[in-house]
C-alpha cells in the first residue's frame, strides 16, 4: 500500500518522470478502480490544502455542541469585529438587553392592526364572540389590553419569515372569482418590504382596481391580513369601499397601520357578500 500511495502522490504532485506518468495514465484509462483511487487522493488533497477549512469545521462542531441559551435575543453583529473593545461591546449588549426588556414589557402582545382611515377593522370571522374593534387613533396606537406574546417585536424570528405554501399557491395560480371578477393590486407590490417605524408601526397602503364587475352593482370589498402560519384565521378583516371614477373604473384604497412582529404577511381581497377571493399577495414587515 505504501508503494501505491507514494506512486499516486508523486503523480498528483507532478513528481513522476514522463515514462512513469504515461504508465499511470494508461493504467487509469484501463482500470476504473485504479482511476477512482487516484481521484479520491486528488480530492482529499484539494479538500484539505487549506488548513483554515478544517479548523473552522472543528470550531463549528464544538460550538454546535454547546447549549444554546434559552430565549437569548439575537445579538446585533458588530460592524468591525476583532477591533472592538470588549467592555464597550459588553456595555452595548447590556444596553440592548435592557432595551429589549423595556420593549418587551411595554410593547409586547398580539398583533395590533389598525386601519389608518375611517373604517374600523372587523375581528377575524372565526373568532367569536369578539370584543369591539378598537377605534384607530394616532395618539394611542397601542392598546394596553393585548395578550402577552413570547417574543419582543424587535426580534426577527426566522420562523415568521417561512413562506406559507398554501397561500403562495394561490398567488402563483392567480385568482379569479366565479363571476370572472378580479382585483388587480397596485399596492403593495408583491414581496414588498415595509419597515416598522421607531414605535414598531408599519404603514401599508393597499390599492387596486376591480376588473370584470358590473358597474351598476354596489359592492364592498374586504381586505384580510394573515400571518405566514394560518391561512384560515385572518389577523384582521377590513372593509374597503369601491370608488367608481368617471370612466366607470372601480378603484379601492386603504392604508393600514400595523403593529405586528417582523415577518411575512399575506393579504387577501374578497367580495364581502360572497367571500369570493379576488386577489392575494404578500409583503414583509422588516427583514431577517
Amino acid at each position, binding site marked *: 500500500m505504501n508503494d501505491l500511495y507514494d506512486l499516486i502522490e508523486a503523480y498528483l504532485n507532478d513528481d513522476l518522470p514522463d515514462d512513469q506518468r504515461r504508465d499511470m495514465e494508461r493504467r487509469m484509462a484501463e482500470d476504473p478502480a485504479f482511476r477512482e483511487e487516484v481521484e479520491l487522493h486528488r480530492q482529499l488533497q484539494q479538500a484539505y490544502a487549506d488548513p483554515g477549512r478544517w479548523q473552522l469545521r472543528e*470550531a463549528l462542531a464544538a460550538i454546535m455542541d454547546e447549549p444554546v441559551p434559552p430565549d437569548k435575543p439575537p445579538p446585533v453583529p458588530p460592524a468591525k469585529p476583532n477591533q472592538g473593545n470588549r467592555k464597550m461591546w459588553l456595555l452595548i449588549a447590556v444596553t440592548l438587553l435592557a432595551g429589549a426588556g423595556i420593549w418587551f414589557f411595554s410593547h409586547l402582545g398580539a398583533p395590533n392592526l389598525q386601519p389608518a382611515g375611517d373604517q374600523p377593522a372587523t375581528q377575524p370571522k372565526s373568532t367569536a364572540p369578539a370584543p369591539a374593534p378598537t377605534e384607530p387613533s394616532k395618539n394611542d396606537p397601542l392598546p394596553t389590553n393585548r395578550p402577552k406574546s413570547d417574543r419582543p417585536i424587535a426580534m426577527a424570528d426566522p420562523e415568521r419569515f417561512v413562506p406559507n405554501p398554501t397561500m403562495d399557491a394561490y398567488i402563483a395560480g392567480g385568482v379569479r372569482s366565479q363571476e370572472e371578477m378580479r382585483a388587480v393590486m397596485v399596492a403593495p407590490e408583491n414581496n414588498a418590504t415595509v419597515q416598522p417605524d421607531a414605535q414598531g408601526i408599519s404603514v401599508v397602503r393597499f390599492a387596486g382596481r376591480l376588473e370584470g364587475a358590473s358597474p351598476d352593482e354596489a359592492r364592498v370589498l374586504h381586505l384580510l391580513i394573515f400571518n405566514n402560519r394560518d391561512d384560515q384565521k385572518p389577523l384582521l378583516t377590513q372593509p374597503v369601499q369601491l370608488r367608481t371614477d368617471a370612466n366607470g373604473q372601480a378603484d379601492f384604497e386603504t392604508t393600514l397601520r400595523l403593529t405586528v412582529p417582523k415577518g411575512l404577511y399575506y393579504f387577501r381581497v374578497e367580495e364581502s357578500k360572497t367571500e369570493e377571493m379576488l386577489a392575494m399577495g404578500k409583503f414583509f414587515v422588516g427583514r*431577517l
Partner: protein
Amino acid sequence: MEPTATMHPYLNAVRSGDRALLRQLRDELYPFVRGLVLKNSGTEDDAKDVFQDAVMVVYDKAGQAEFMLTSRFSTFFCGIALNLWRSRRKKKSNSEVTIPEDAPYTDDEQPDLDFEQIERQALFDKAMAQLGADCRKLLGLFFQKKTMSEIAENMGFGSENYARRRKHACKEFLIERIRSYPEYRELRNT
C-alpha cells in the same frame, strides 16, 4: 482570501474562525435552519449538519476572489441552508421541502451550489472526525504539502521514515472510513 475590514462581520468570522462571532451566527440563524429541517421530516442532528455545512459553503464562497456579498447575509445564508436541505430531502425520499421556489431566501443573489462537491466534502469531514487528533494533525500538515522532515519535526517524531509510515497508516484509515459510508458509493454513481 484573507479577511478584510470591509467584509461582512459574519464572512470575516467564518473565514477567520472567530468563535465568538460564530456563536453569534449560530444564535441568530440556527433557529431558522432548525425550524426548516424539523418541519420537513428532519432531525435535530440533520439540522446541525445542514447549518454547519452551510457555514462551510460560506467559507468556500467567501474565499473566492470574485465573490461579493450583494444581499443580506441572512438571505444568503438561509438560501444556502434551504437549498442544501431541499437537495438532501430529495435524495433521501424524493420528497420536496414544503417551501416554494419563490421563498425569500432564494433570490437572485443565491449562488449556484455544487451539491456533489458539498456532499463529498461533508463526507470527508465526517471521516476525518473519526481519526485521532494526531492523525488529523499529521494529515493536515501532509495535505498542506509540508515535507516529511517538517512533519516529523512538528509532530515530534524521531525520523522522516516514521513520519511517512504514520502518514500512510492515517491516510489508509481515512480512505477506509470514507469508503465505508454508503453515501460515498452514491456520490461515485452520480
